C-alpha cells in the first residue's frame, strides 16, 4: 500500500521520477532555491527523453547533467551557469550539436509568464525587451501597443503563460499532511501554482502541521499543489540547500573536470548517477 502524507503519496526517488513521462514540461528553480538533484539523478537513470525544461529563471548543474544525459528536448532559460565551478560543457556541447531547442529569455520574463499561468491568465505584459535579439528570436512573444495609453505610442511585450506539467524542486521538510515548507523562496510557490502538479523531494517528513500556526503557514506551500513527495536526505547535493548545507566544492570541481568530454561525463554518471541507485 502506498504511504501517504495526508492525501499526498510518499514514494521513492525512482517512483517519483517515474511520474514524469518523456516530453514533459518541467519547471526547475535556481541553485539558491533548492534543486532536486537526487531526483534529477533518478530521472537520468530512468532515461527520460525530450524534456522541456523551464528554468525559473536560471539553472546550472541540473540542466548541464540532463543535457549531457540526452534527456532534454528544449531549454527555456535566462542563463545556464556553474558559477565559480566553470563552464557548463555538456549544455554548451548539446546546444552546438542541436540536440535541443534553445529558448533564451530574461529573468523577469520567465517569472511573469509563470505568474500568468498561476493566475490562469493567457499572457502577461513585461516592460523592456524592445530592440533585443531575445525578442527577435522568440516568435512566441508578441508586441502590442498599450491600449490604455492614448497620448503616445507605447509598445509593450506580451509573454504567453508558461504552464509546466510539473514543478520539480527540493525543500527542507514537509509536514505529515504533505504541506511543504518553502520559507521565503516564493518562486517555488509561483512554480507550483503554474504547474499541473509539483513533485517535491524533502530532507525529511516531520510529524507536525505547518498550517497550525500563522508563522509557519506563511512559509508553506499547501499540499493541494503537491503530486508526490520523496524523502531525500541531502537531496540537493552537490548543490547547496539554503543555509542548511553548502555547495560540495570538491565534488563540483570534479564534475567540472569530468564533464569536459562526453566520455568523462559518462564515467561520472557511471560512478555518481547509476551506482547511487541503492544509496538513494
Amino acid at each position, binding site marked *: 500500500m502506498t504511504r501517504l502524507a495526508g492525501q499526498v503519496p510518499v514514494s521513492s526517488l525512482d517512483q517519483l521520477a517515474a511520474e514524469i513521462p518523456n516530453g514533459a514540461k518541467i519547471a526547475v528553480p535556481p541553485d539558491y532555491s533548492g534543486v532536486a538533484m537526487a531526483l534529477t539523478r533518478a530521472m537520468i537513470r530512468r532515461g527520460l527523453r525530450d524534456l522541456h525544461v523551464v528554468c525559473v529563471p536560471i539553472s546550472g548543474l541540473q540542466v548541464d547533467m540532463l543535457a549531457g544525459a540526452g534527456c532534454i528536448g528544449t531549454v527555456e532559460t535566462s*542563463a545556464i551557469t556553474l558559477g565559480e565551478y566553470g563552464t*557548463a560543457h555538456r549544455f554548451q556541447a548539446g546546444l552546438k550539436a542541436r540536440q535541443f531547442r534553445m529558448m533564451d529569455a530574461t529573468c523577469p*520574463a520567465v517569472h511573469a509568464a509563470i505568474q500568468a499561468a498561476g493566475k490562469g491568465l493567457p499572457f502577461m505584459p513585461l*516592460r523592456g*525587451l524592445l530592440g*533585443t535579439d531575445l525578442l527577435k528570436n522568440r516568435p512566441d512573444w508578441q508586441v502590442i501597443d498599450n491600449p490604455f495609453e492614448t497620448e503616445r*505610442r507605447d509598445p509593450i511585450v506580451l509573454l504567453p503563460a508558461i504552464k509546466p506539467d510539473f514543478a520539480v524542486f527540493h525543500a527542507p521538510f514537509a509536514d505529515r499532511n504533505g504541506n511543504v515548507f518553502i520559507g521565503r*523562496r516564493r518562486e517555488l510557490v509561483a512554480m507550483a501554482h503554474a504547474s499541473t502538479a509539483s513533485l517535491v523531494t524533502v530532507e525529511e517528513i516531520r510529524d507536525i502541521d505547518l498550517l497550525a500556526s500563522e508563522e509557519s503557514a506563511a512559509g508553506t506551500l499547501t499540499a493541494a499543489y503537491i503530486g508526490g513527495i520523496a524523502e531525500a536526505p541531502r537531496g540537493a547535493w552537490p548543490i547547496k540547500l539554503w543555509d542548511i548545507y553548502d555547495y560540495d566544492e570538491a565534488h563540483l570541481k570534479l564534475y567540472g573536470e569530468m564533464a569536459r568530454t562526453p566520455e568523462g561525463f559518462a564515467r561520472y554518471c557511471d560512478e555518481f548517477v547509476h551506482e547511487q541507485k541503492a544509496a538513494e
Partner: protein
Amino acid sequence: MSAFSRQELLINTIARLLQGCRLVATGASSPIPGAGALLARAQSGGRMRVNVLGSVRNDFLCDGGVELFDLAGQGRLDAFFLGGGQIDGQANINLVGAGGAYPQTDVRWPGSFGSGSLYYLVPRVILFREEHTRRVLVPKVDFISSAGPQNDGTYRPGGPIGLLTNLCWFAFDREQCRFRLESVHPGHTVEEVRDNTGFDFDCPATVPATAAPDAETLALMRTRIARDIAETYPRFVAQVFPDLAAAGD
C-alpha cells in the same frame, strides 16, 4: 597618497557613482560592484539600502526571485550593474554568445539574466567589465541581450550612465547615444584606452585621472566593507584583501 590596488580604485569609483541612491542592488558574480555598493551605503549616513544577490545578511528581499524585478518595475530600484561578453558604442550589451549563427554561436556565455528588463527600468545602470580589450568593447555586438537607449519615444526610464573598466570610466551621453571618456585610471593613458577600444567615443582635449580613494575610505574598505562582502565572496576577499583574510576575520 596611499597606495591602492586596481580593485580598490574600482570599488571607490563605484561608491562615488552611487551617491544619492536610496536603493541599490547587485547581481550574480559581482564582488566589486557589491563592495562598491556596501561602501556607498557606509558613506550614506543610513540613507541607502543595498541588496547583494547571494548574501544572507545583505539581502532584505523576501518575496522570491521576482521581487527584485518588481522593485525595478515600480521604479524603486535606483541603481544596478550589468556586464557583457561584448559591449558596443551604442551601449548594446551581449551576454549570450559571439560568432557563428545564433543559437549555435561559436562562443556561448551563460545568458541574459535580468538584463533584458532591468536595463530599461533602472535609472542608474553602471556597465561594469574589468577586461578592457577590443574583444569585449566592439563596434557592434553579435547579439543584443539588452539594447542601449534608442530615444525613440518608447517607455525607457532606465539605462546606462556609463561604463567602468580596468582602464577608465566612460560616461554615456543619452542624447547622442555615445560614450565620452570621462576619466582614465591612474597609471593608464588615453592612448591605451584608444588602442584597446573597438568602438568610437568622444574624447575631450584633456582627460582627468580617475579620483583615487583617500586614506579614510581605504581604511573603511579594508576592514568593514571587506568583512561584509566576504560573506558572499570569500575568494575575492582572500585575493584582494589578503591582510583581512590572514587576520581570520
